């Protein structure tokens, strides 16, 4: 923790400045020369779509990651953060989007993790508990310091995460989606705390998908798009429309819906499907949802985090059981079939997290590509290498994977090409319905366009495609129909002629008048 500064800077002075920050992962540039100022005692909100680079920038400012190039100035002096502890010691803390609490420990132990208070004999648990209680009182949350974090609701866990960041007396507090699991009243309390903090001279960096909410609390708006700052303004001078316009920017051409053919019969029919929350609460993550998709049709499902998109797709693919309702593939009820049986019948899923669910990192590009269709090249008992070879080479050509060859390790490919491998793997099974959960996540714009072009081609050949996205611009590419999900239900359906504003309004992201 820093000693109090000798001089008293005025509110609005720049405390921390990022200059020309570039961050590259392999060939992908997450940040392309970003300049970002944090002002004393004010809230600066960073707006941007998924993949715009918000979290990456925040990770750099809080010492989680180091920039590829560029510099950071704290109080006008250049600094290099060697670690999060280093950044914390200089007064910068971050509340991560993903909770970083130890669920098996108590609230008190989580808040003081890594900087336990020492007493005369060992640790001063009583003082830790006292401070924890004070923090909870500030946040108007009635949580006992000895409660285990795993016993708390997600929203309460987020409060604990916030309390931990508050407990270190930070000068700069970065909040990455702090309200995603909070109720409306909890959000109000948080905003009150934020105002208290700014009044005390603490600078806040705020990131949220709920644009309206963010606009309420912020003093400055900074918009990030594709790794570059596109606009900055004082909050007094802007409105939601300004934010949305700068966030989505000019349309990058993600293609248009394939035309020139008639849709076939209904390929996939989701009939009144409900899915219970896996964490055990009686909330339904998908609530009596019905949707028909015809052969050759491309349907895009848009929704915010937690809208139930992933659960819906995983349930249709067989990863999650249905709580109620049925899933029909070409008229047959497949709700009770295993994943493998559904793949055999022609229903495949390209999962959201390709590292975790899509690829086997220990295998080659070729072995990953052929994994789902091994049956196609078994001769008698043994695999036919020549058949496998031609299948793999054919797929590499078809989906245009840029690789040194089938024998290259899968990790040697760029994110976009890895995604093409996952898609190619499922295409080799010759599916009738393909589900893709956020197929564009973490891949660059060029690869994105290629992936969508590929899906368009397949749809024209009769494949029914359902993909989910949390980027509005992607809804307006190849999809024939756009479904907006909100709290487990379809809140709106649009044709391809919809506007971004309509979609965002239906998702609950921004209500535009």
């Amino acid at each position, binding site marked *: 923790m820093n000693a109090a500064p000798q001089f008293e800077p005025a509110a609005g002075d720049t405390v921390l400045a990022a200059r020309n920050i570039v961050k590259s*992962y*392999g060939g992908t540039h997450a940040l392309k020369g970003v300049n970002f100022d944090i002002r004393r005692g004010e809230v600066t909100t960073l707006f941007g779509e998924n993949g715009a*680079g918000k*979290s990456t920038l925040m990770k750099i400012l809080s010492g989680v990651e180091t920039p590829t190039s560029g510099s950071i100035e704290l109080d006008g002096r250049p600094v290099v953060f060697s670690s999060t502890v280093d950044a914390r010691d200089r007064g910068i803390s971050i509340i991560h989007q993903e909770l970083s609490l130890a669920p098996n420990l108590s609230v008190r132990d989580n808040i003081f993790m890594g900087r336990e208070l020492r007493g005369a004999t060992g640790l001063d648990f009583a003082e830790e508990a006292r401070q924890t209680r004070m923090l909870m009182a500030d946040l108007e949350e009635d949580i006992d310091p000895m409660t285990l974090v795993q016993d708390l609701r997600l929203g309460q866990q987020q409060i604990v995460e916030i309390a931990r960041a508050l407990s270190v007396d930070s000068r700069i507090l970065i909040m990455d989606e702090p309200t995603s699991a909070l109720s409306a009243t909890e959000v109000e309390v948080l905003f009150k705390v934020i105002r208290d903090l700014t009044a005390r001279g603490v600078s806040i960096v705020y990131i949220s998908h709920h644009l309206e909410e963010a606009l309420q609390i912020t003093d400055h708006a900074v918009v990030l798009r594709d790794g570059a700052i596109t606009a900055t303004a004082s909050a007094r001078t802007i409105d939601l429309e300004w934010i949305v316009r700068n966030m989505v920017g000019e349309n990058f051409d993600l293609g248009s819906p394939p035309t020139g053919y008639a849709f076939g019969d209904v390929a996939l029919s989701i009939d009144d499907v409900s899915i219970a929350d896996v964490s055990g609460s009686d909330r339904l993550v998908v609530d009596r949802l019905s949707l028909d998709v015809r052969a050759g049709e491309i349907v895009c499902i848009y929704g915010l985090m937690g809208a139930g998109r992933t659960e819906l797709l995983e349930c249709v693919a067989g990863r999650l059981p249905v709580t109620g309702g049925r899933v029909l593939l070409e008229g047959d009820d497949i709700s009770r079939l295993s994943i493998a049986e559904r793949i055999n019948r022609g229903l495949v899923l390209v999962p959201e997290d390709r590292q975790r669910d899509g690829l086997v990192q220990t295998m080659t590009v070729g072995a990953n590509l052929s994994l789902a269709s091994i049956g196609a090249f078994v001769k008698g008992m043994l695999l036919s290498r020549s058949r496998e070879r031609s299948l793999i080479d054919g797929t590499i050509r078809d989906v245009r994977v840029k*690789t040194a060859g089938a*024998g290259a390790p899968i990790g*040697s490919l760029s994110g976009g090409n890895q995604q093409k491998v996952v898609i190619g793997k499922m295409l080799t099974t010759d599916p009738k319905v393909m589900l893709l959960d956020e197929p564009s996540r973490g891949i660059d714009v060029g690869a994105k366009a290629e992936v969508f072009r590929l899906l368009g081609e397949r749809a024209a050949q009769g494949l029914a495609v359902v993909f989910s996205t949390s980027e509005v611009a992607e809804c307006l590419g190849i999809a024939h129909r756009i479904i907006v999900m909100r709290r487990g239900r379809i809140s709106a359906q649009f044709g391809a002629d919809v506007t971004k504003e309509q979609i965002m309004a239906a998702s609950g992201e921004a209500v535009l008048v």
Partner: protein
Amino acid sequence: MTSASQNSSRSGPRTSSGGFSLAKLLLEGRAFLALMVIILVFSMLSPYYFSLGNFLTMASHVAIFGILAVGMLLVILNGGIDLSVGSTLGLSGVIAGFLMQGVQLQTLGIVLFPPVWVVVVLVCVLGALVGLVNGVLIAWLKVPAFVATLGMLYVVRGAALLMTNGLTYNDLGGKPELGNTGFDWLGFNRLFGIPIGVLVMVVIAIIGSIILNRTAFGRWLYASGGNERAAELSGVPVKKVQVSVYMLSGICASVAGLILSSELTSAGPTAGNSYELTAIAAVVIGGAALTGGRGNIRGTLVGAFVIGFLSDGLVIIGVSAYWQTVFTGAVIVLAVLLNAIQYRRRVKLPGSNGGPSTSQQQAGKARTADPAHEKIAG
């Protein structure tokens, strides 16, 4: 897409692309190199070490561990561990002994003396059953592999002790008039001068190699060991694969138990105590990753030979048994250390796998294996 696709020779789904670098060669072939060093050193230290006779004797010692290790490799490729194989080996010997002594059917008042082949089959079925219990516990009931097989280690050993009351079956020769002779063939006979046990190990290794490299099951095993979630979403029957590997490991343990009791012409309930650890060591020295998905039969066999030739060598030059333990332990730690270095390199430098001479043109785009790459989503 590029010409480099021609030079990807594969050993399992692992790659070894066409570059040449001495450091890489030494690292990848380290188990084999270690074996050569062991043979060289002991040959200089003892005049008896470097002879065909001694090699065959040592090889028949290795065979027991080699067979266990092949089964263990399958389990480890799946990301699991099988601590029960030593006990299964012991119980298998005891069951064989029990069957050879004749099975009394009291209700019928007769004594059955099953022929040797029936004994062999029954014992293998027993091993498969132990594996089935392990597999069901792990795959369906979600008991961690370490705990499930640790439990079976005790249960199976206890069963062996109960069956014999702690005693040993001494006479496994069978009687010609009962038609059950021939059990000692496994442990004593030679084919083309090679002990049967060694041949059995070779046959099992070849079968294992074919399973791993040329069957759908092998591919499923590598895939589900490398990433179970991805494998499942690709339609791999991950649970069946998991149960199968424990059953195969159990069968391997039974075969090893048969050979050991045949070599000793006796079956004691404590046979094979702690052999599971030697088998795991062989697999690890052979370059397999305990996290699953990486490893092959060739490496595992070399690993078994490293351990066997080292400990026999130490016996031959008269080093105390206590020092043998220390040496074996040191070799295991060294092997795991080198594994860590190899896999770390692979993660950090995926684009440079082909060595400095190849694949530079794609290096810029290629070095993106870093999992953090996925985190760029704002």
